[in-house]
Protein backbone atom coordinates (compact mmCIF):
# COMPACT_ATOMS: atom_id res chain seq x y z
CA UNK A 1 0.00 0.00 0.00
CA UNK A 2 1.10 3.55 -0.70
CA UNK A 3 0.09 6.55 1.35
CA UNK A 4 0.90 10.22 1.70
CA UNK A 5 0.82 12.47 4.76
CA UNK A 6 -0.60 15.98 4.73
CA UNK A 7 -0.03 17.88 7.98
CA UNK A 8 1.41 21.33 8.59
CA UNK A 9 3.25 20.25 11.76
CA UNK A 10 6.61 18.58 11.21
CA UNK A 11 6.12 16.91 14.61
CA UNK A 12 2.88 15.28 13.44
CA UNK A 13 4.38 14.19 10.11
CA UNK A 14 7.33 12.60 11.93
CA UNK A 15 5.00 10.70 14.27
CA UNK A 16 2.78 9.49 11.43
CA UNK A 17 5.77 8.43 9.40
CA UNK A 18 7.09 6.47 12.38
CA UNK A 19 3.71 4.77 12.87
CA UNK A 20 3.64 3.87 9.15
CA UNK A 21 7.13 2.37 9.37
CA UNK A 22 5.70 -0.26 11.71
CA UNK A 23 3.40 -1.57 8.98
CA UNK A 24 5.35 -3.96 6.75
CA UNK A 25 3.36 -3.51 3.52
CA UNK A 26 2.93 0.24 3.80
CA UNK A 27 5.08 2.88 2.13
CA UNK A 28 4.90 6.63 2.71
CA UNK A 29 5.56 8.10 -0.73
CA UNK A 30 5.22 11.75 0.23
CA UNK A 31 4.88 14.17 3.15
CA UNK A 32 3.36 17.61 2.65
CA UNK A 33 2.61 20.57 4.88
CA UNK A 34 -0.32 21.94 2.88
CA UNK A 35 -3.30 20.86 0.82
CA UNK A 36 -1.92 22.60 -2.27
CA UNK A 37 1.35 20.66 -2.07
CA UNK A 38 -0.59 17.44 -1.69
CA UNK A 39 -2.79 18.15 -4.71
CA UNK A 40 0.22 19.15 -6.78
CA UNK A 41 1.92 15.86 -5.89
CA UNK A 42 -1.17 13.78 -6.71
CA UNK A 43 -1.45 15.48 -10.12
CA UNK A 44 2.05 14.34 -11.04
CA UNK A 45 2.00 10.98 -9.29
CA UNK A 46 2.34 7.83 -11.35
CA UNK A 47 1.88 5.40 -8.45
CA UNK A 48 -1.51 4.51 -7.03
CA UNK A 49 -2.01 6.28 -3.69
CA UNK A 50 -4.20 4.02 -1.57
CA UNK A 51 -4.86 6.43 1.26
CA UNK A 52 -3.98 9.79 2.72
CA UNK A 53 -3.28 10.64 6.36
CA UNK A 54 -4.87 14.06 6.40
CA UNK A 55 -4.90 16.74 9.08
CA UNK A 56 -8.04 18.87 9.29
CA UNK A 57 -6.54 22.10 10.63
CA UNK A 58 -4.30 23.29 7.83
CA UNK A 59 -3.33 26.79 6.75
CA UNK A 60 -5.12 28.27 3.71
CA UNK A 61 -7.18 25.17 2.84
CA UNK A 62 -8.48 22.72 5.42
CA UNK A 63 -8.55 18.95 5.24
CA UNK A 64 -12.23 19.15 4.33
CA UNK A 65 -11.41 21.47 1.41
CA UNK A 66 -9.03 18.79 0.20
CA UNK A 67 -11.67 16.05 0.52
CA UNK A 68 -14.13 18.22 -1.40
CA UNK A 69 -11.55 18.62 -4.17
CA UNK A 70 -11.20 14.84 -4.34
CA UNK A 71 -14.98 14.37 -4.27
CA UNK A 72 -15.50 16.96 -7.03
CA UNK A 73 -13.61 14.70 -9.42
CA UNK A 74 -11.04 17.38 -10.25
CA UNK A 75 -8.29 14.79 -9.90
CA UNK A 76 -10.17 11.93 -11.53
CA UNK A 77 -8.23 12.20 -14.78
CA UNK A 78 -4.96 11.65 -12.93
CA UNK A 79 -6.06 9.21 -10.24
CA UNK A 80 -6.95 5.66 -11.16
CA UNK A 81 -8.82 5.30 -7.85
CA UNK A 82 -9.79 7.97 -5.35
CA UNK A 83 -7.57 7.48 -2.29
CA UNK A 84 -9.20 6.72 1.03
CA UNK A 85 -8.71 9.16 3.88
CA UNK A 86 -7.70 8.76 7.49
CA UNK A 87 -8.28 12.07 9.23
CA UNK A 88 -5.79 12.99 11.94
CA UNK A 89 -6.70 15.81 14.27
CA UNK A 90 -6.49 17.12 17.81
CA UNK A 91 -10.13 18.12 17.63
CA UNK A 92 -12.91 15.61 18.23
CA UNK A 93 -15.60 18.08 17.16
CA UNK A 94 -15.32 17.21 13.47
CA UNK A 95 -15.99 13.48 13.76
CA UNK A 96 -19.63 13.65 12.63
CA UNK A 97 -18.82 15.87 9.65
CA UNK A 98 -15.90 13.58 8.74
CA UNK A 99 -18.03 10.49 8.35
CA UNK A 100 -20.35 12.25 5.92
CA UNK A 101 -17.66 11.66 3.32
CA UNK A 102 -17.57 8.19 1.75
CA UNK A 103 -13.80 8.31 1.35
CA UNK A 104 -13.16 8.87 5.07
CA UNK A 105 -12.35 5.49 6.60
CA UNK A 106 -11.21 6.57 10.06
CA UNK A 107 -10.75 9.55 12.35
CA UNK A 108 -7.70 9.54 14.58
CA UNK A 109 -7.38 11.83 17.56
CA UNK A 110 -3.91 13.12 18.31
CA UNK A 111 -1.79 12.03 20.06
CA UNK A 112 -2.18 8.82 18.05
CA UNK A 113 -1.33 5.61 19.85
CA UNK A 114 0.29 2.78 17.87
CA UNK A 115 -2.51 0.31 18.61
CA UNK A 116 -5.17 2.76 17.45
CA UNK A 117 -3.16 3.54 14.32
CA UNK A 118 -2.85 -0.15 13.48
CA UNK A 119 -6.61 -0.51 13.84
CA UNK A 120 -7.10 2.31 11.32
CA UNK A 121 -4.77 0.55 8.87
CA UNK A 122 -6.77 -2.66 9.29
CA UNK A 123 -9.90 -0.67 8.42
CA UNK A 124 -8.18 0.65 5.28
CA UNK A 125 -7.16 -2.87 4.26
CA UNK A 126 -10.67 -4.20 4.85
CA UNK A 127 -12.14 -1.30 2.87
CA UNK A 128 -9.73 -1.90 -0.03
CA UNK A 129 -10.48 -5.63 0.00
CA UNK A 130 -14.23 -4.99 -0.12
CA UNK A 131 -13.79 -2.54 -3.00
CA UNK A 132 -11.71 -5.10 -4.86
CA UNK A 133 -14.33 -7.82 -4.33
CA UNK A 134 -17.05 -5.50 -5.64
CA UNK A 135 -14.92 -4.68 -8.66
CA UNK A 136 -14.27 -8.37 -9.36
CA UNK A 137 -17.97 -9.20 -9.08
CA UNK A 138 -18.89 -6.38 -11.44
CA UNK A 139 -16.68 -7.90 -14.14
CA UNK A 140 -19.05 -10.83 -14.40
CA UNK A 141 -22.68 -10.19 -15.25
CA UNK A 142 -25.06 -13.08 -15.55
CA UNK A 143 -27.97 -12.08 -17.79
CA UNK A 144 -29.84 -15.30 -18.25
CA UNK A 145 -29.53 -18.97 -17.39
CA UNK A 146 -27.27 -19.66 -20.36
CA UNK A 147 -25.46 -16.39 -20.85
CA UNK A 148 -22.74 -14.53 -19.08
CA UNK A 149 -21.26 -11.14 -19.92
CA UNK A 150 -17.64 -10.55 -19.04
CA UNK A 151 -15.92 -7.21 -18.80
CA UNK A 152 -12.74 -7.21 -20.87
CA UNK A 153 -10.96 -3.93 -21.59
CA UNK A 154 -14.14 -1.99 -20.75
CA UNK A 155 -16.17 -4.06 -23.27
CA UNK A 156 -18.91 -6.44 -22.21
CA UNK A 157 -18.58 -9.68 -24.12
CA UNK A 158 -21.33 -12.30 -24.19
CA UNK A 159 -20.41 -15.92 -23.58
CA UNK A 160 -22.74 -18.90 -23.84
CA UNK A 161 -22.32 -20.66 -20.53
CA UNK A 162 -22.65 -24.24 -21.93
CA UNK A 163 -19.77 -23.51 -24.34
CA UNK A 164 -17.34 -22.99 -21.42
CA UNK A 165 -15.40 -26.16 -20.82
CA UNK A 166 -12.75 -24.94 -18.39
CA UNK A 167 -12.00 -22.02 -16.13
CA UNK A 168 -8.49 -21.67 -14.83
CA UNK A 169 -7.28 -19.34 -12.04
CA UNK A 170 -4.29 -17.18 -13.02
CA UNK A 171 -3.35 -14.91 -10.11
CA UNK A 172 -5.85 -12.06 -9.98
CA UNK A 173 -7.38 -13.24 -13.27
CA UNK A 174 -9.29 -16.21 -14.61
CA UNK A 175 -8.84 -17.79 -18.02
CA UNK A 176 -12.26 -18.72 -19.28
CA UNK A 177 -12.01 -21.29 -22.07
CA UNK A 178 -14.70 -22.05 -24.63
CA UNK A 179 -14.42 -24.21 -27.73
CA UNK A 180 -13.85 -21.09 -29.86
CA UNK A 181 -12.07 -18.58 -27.62
CA UNK A 182 -10.21 -17.94 -24.40
CA UNK A 183 -11.13 -14.94 -22.24
CA UNK A 184 -8.85 -13.45 -19.59
CA UNK A 185 -11.03 -11.72 -17.00
CA UNK A 186 -10.08 -9.88 -13.83
CA UNK A 187 -12.04 -12.04 -11.41
CA UNK A 188 -11.73 -15.11 -9.21
CA UNK A 189 -12.95 -18.73 -9.38
CA UNK A 190 -15.10 -18.08 -6.32
CA UNK A 191 -16.88 -15.18 -8.06
CA UNK A 192 -17.52 -16.96 -11.32
CA UNK A 193 -18.66 -20.14 -9.58
CA UNK A 194 -21.58 -18.15 -8.16
CA UNK A 195 -22.60 -17.16 -11.69
CA UNK A 196 -22.58 -20.66 -13.13
CA UNK A 197 -25.17 -23.45 -12.81
CA UNK A 198 -24.06 -25.93 -10.12
CA UNK A 199 -25.46 -28.84 -12.12
CA UNK A 200 -23.01 -28.17 -14.95
CA UNK A 201 -19.85 -26.84 -13.34
CA UNK A 202 -17.65 -28.33 -10.65
CA UNK A 203 -14.54 -26.97 -8.99
CA UNK A 204 -12.17 -29.92 -9.21
CA UNK A 205 -9.03 -28.20 -7.97
CA UNK A 206 -8.12 -24.89 -6.31
CA UNK A 207 -7.16 -23.59 -9.76
CA UNK A 208 -9.80 -25.21 -11.99
CA UNK A 209 -13.54 -25.31 -12.58
CA UNK A 210 -14.72 -27.72 -15.27
CA UNK A 211 -17.91 -28.20 -17.24
CA UNK A 212 -18.80 -31.80 -16.37
CA UNK A 213 -20.66 -32.23 -19.68
CA UNK A 214 -17.37 -31.74 -21.55
CA UNK A 215 -15.42 -34.48 -19.79
CA UNK A 216 -13.84 -36.95 -22.22
CA UNK A 217 -12.23 -39.23 -19.66
CA UNK A 218 -11.09 -39.64 -16.07
CA UNK A 219 -7.88 -41.30 -15.07
CA UNK A 220 -6.68 -41.53 -11.48
CA UNK A 221 -6.56 -37.96 -10.24
CA UNK A 222 -6.89 -36.24 -13.60
CA UNK A 223 -9.69 -35.46 -15.97
CA UNK A 224 -9.40 -35.13 -19.75
CA UNK A 225 -11.40 -32.23 -21.05
CA UNK A 226 -11.07 -30.96 -24.62
CA UNK A 227 -7.51 -32.27 -24.99
CA UNK A 228 -6.43 -30.80 -21.66
CA UNK A 229 -5.48 -32.91 -18.68
CA UNK A 230 -6.69 -31.25 -15.50
CA UNK A 231 -5.77 -32.35 -11.96
CA UNK A 232 -8.53 -33.33 -9.57
CA UNK A 233 -8.12 -32.75 -5.85
CA UNK A 234 -8.85 -35.70 -3.57
CA UNK A 235 -11.80 -33.89 -1.98
CA UNK A 236 -13.42 -33.11 -5.37
CA UNK A 237 -13.02 -36.62 -6.79
CA UNK A 238 -15.90 -38.06 -4.76
CA UNK A 239 -18.26 -35.32 -5.94
CA UNK A 240 -17.12 -35.77 -9.54
CA UNK A 241 -17.70 -39.53 -9.42
CA UNK A 242 -21.24 -38.91 -8.13
CA UNK A 243 -22.00 -36.71 -11.09
CA UNK A 244 -20.96 -39.01 -13.89
CA UNK A 245 -23.21 -41.74 -15.21
CA UNK A 246 -21.05 -44.69 -14.26
CA UNK A 247 -21.98 -48.12 -15.65
Amino acid at each position, binding site marked *: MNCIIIDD*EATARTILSQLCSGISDLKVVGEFDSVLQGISFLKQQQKQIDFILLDI*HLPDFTGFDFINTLASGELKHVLEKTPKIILTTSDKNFAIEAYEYDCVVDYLLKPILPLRFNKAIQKIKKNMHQASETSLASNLIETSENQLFVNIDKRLIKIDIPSIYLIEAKGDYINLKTEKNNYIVHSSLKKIKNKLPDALFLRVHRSYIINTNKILGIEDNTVLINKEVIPISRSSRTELMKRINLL
Partner: protein
Amino acid sequence: MDVPNLKYINKLANGDKIFSKKLIDIIKQEFPVEKHSYYKNINSNNFEMALQNVHKLKHKLSILSFEKGYLLAIKHEENLRIHNNSLNEEFKRVLDKITDYLNSI
Protein backbone atom coordinates in the same frame (compact mmCIF):
# COMPACT_ATOMS: atom_id res chain seq x y z
CA MET B 1 0.45 13.60 34.80
CA ASP B 2 1.15 17.07 36.17
CA VAL B 3 4.56 17.38 34.61
CA PRO B 4 5.77 16.98 31.02
CA ASN B 5 7.40 13.63 30.36
CA LEU B 6 8.48 11.26 27.58
CA LYS B 7 5.94 8.51 28.23
CA TYR B 8 4.17 8.86 24.87
CA ILE B 9 7.37 9.40 22.86
CA ASN B 10 8.95 6.31 24.42
CA LYS B 11 5.88 4.24 23.61
CA LEU B 12 5.98 5.46 20.04
CA ALA B 13 9.73 4.93 19.70
CA ASN B 14 9.57 1.40 21.10
CA GLY B 15 13.29 1.51 21.87
CA ASP B 16 14.27 3.42 18.73
CA LYS B 17 16.51 6.10 20.28
CA ILE B 18 17.29 7.73 16.95
CA PHE B 19 13.59 8.33 16.40
CA SER B 20 13.11 9.71 19.95
CA LYS B 21 15.94 12.17 19.44
CA LYS B 22 14.68 13.18 16.02
CA LEU B 23 11.17 13.84 17.34
CA ILE B 24 12.40 15.77 20.38
CA ASP B 25 14.64 17.90 18.14
CA ILE B 26 11.68 18.71 15.88
CA ILE B 27 9.54 19.64 18.89
CA LYS B 28 12.39 21.84 20.16
CA GLN B 29 12.41 23.60 16.79
CA GLU B 30 8.64 24.00 16.36
CA PHE B 31 7.59 24.78 19.92
CA PRO B 32 9.40 28.17 20.37
CA VAL B 33 8.11 29.37 16.99
CA GLU B 34 4.52 28.44 17.87
CA LYS B 35 4.87 29.93 21.35
CA HIS B 36 6.24 33.19 19.96
CA SER B 37 3.40 33.35 17.45
CA TYR B 38 0.88 32.72 20.23
CA TYR B 39 2.27 35.57 22.36
CA LYS B 40 2.21 37.89 19.38
CA ASN B 41 -1.38 37.05 18.50
CA ILE B 42 -2.83 36.99 22.01
CA ASN B 43 -1.12 40.28 22.88
CA SER B 44 -2.67 41.93 19.83
CA ASN B 45 -6.10 40.37 20.61
CA ASN B 46 -5.98 38.37 17.39
CA PHE B 47 -8.05 35.57 18.90
CA GLU B 48 -8.58 33.67 15.66
CA MET B 49 -4.87 33.25 15.08
CA ALA B 50 -4.16 32.67 18.78
CA LEU B 51 -6.74 29.89 18.61
CA GLN B 52 -4.79 28.23 15.78
CA ASN B 53 -1.60 28.54 17.84
CA VAL B 54 -3.21 26.97 20.91
CA HIS B 55 -4.47 24.15 18.71
CA LYS B 56 -0.94 23.33 17.58
CA LEU B 57 0.59 23.82 21.01
CA LYS B 58 -2.07 21.56 22.47
CA HIS B 59 -0.75 18.73 20.30
CA LYS B 60 2.77 19.28 21.65
CA LEU B 61 1.42 19.16 25.22
CA SER B 62 -0.23 15.84 24.48
CA ILE B 63 2.95 14.45 22.91
CA LEU B 64 4.83 15.44 26.04
CA SER B 65 2.13 13.67 28.08
CA PHE B 66 1.45 16.86 30.04
CA GLU B 67 -2.17 16.05 30.84
CA LYS B 68 -2.87 19.04 33.08
CA GLY B 69 -1.51 21.45 30.48
CA TYR B 70 -3.36 19.62 27.70
CA LEU B 71 -6.72 19.90 29.50
CA LEU B 72 -6.10 23.59 30.12
CA ALA B 73 -5.27 24.08 26.43
CA ILE B 74 -8.59 22.46 25.44
CA LYS B 75 -10.49 24.85 27.72
CA HIS B 76 -8.46 27.85 26.55
CA GLU B 77 -9.12 26.91 22.91
CA GLU B 78 -12.86 26.72 23.57
CA ASN B 79 -12.78 30.09 25.34
CA LEU B 80 -10.85 31.76 22.53
CA ARG B 81 -13.57 30.70 20.08
CA ILE B 82 -15.85 33.11 21.94
CA HIS B 83 -13.05 35.67 22.30
CA ASN B 84 -12.52 34.94 25.98
CA ASN B 85 -8.81 35.03 26.93
CA SER B 86 -9.29 34.56 30.67
CA LEU B 87 -7.00 31.51 30.74
CA ASN B 88 -4.14 33.29 28.99
CA GLU B 89 -1.94 33.76 32.06
CA GLU B 90 -2.42 30.18 33.20
CA PHE B 91 -1.68 28.93 29.67
CA LYS B 92 1.50 31.01 29.55
CA ARG B 93 2.66 29.24 32.73
CA VAL B 94 2.06 25.92 30.98
CA LEU B 95 4.16 27.10 28.05
CA ASP B 96 6.92 28.18 30.44
CA LYS B 97 6.87 24.76 32.01
CA ILE B 98 7.25 23.13 28.59
CA THR B 99 10.08 25.54 27.70
CA ASP B 100 11.93 24.58 30.89
CA TYR B 101 11.33 20.90 30.22
CA LEU B 102 12.56 21.07 26.63
CA ASN B 103 15.68 22.88 27.82
CA SER B 104 16.29 20.11 30.31
CA ILE B 105 16.18 17.17 27.88
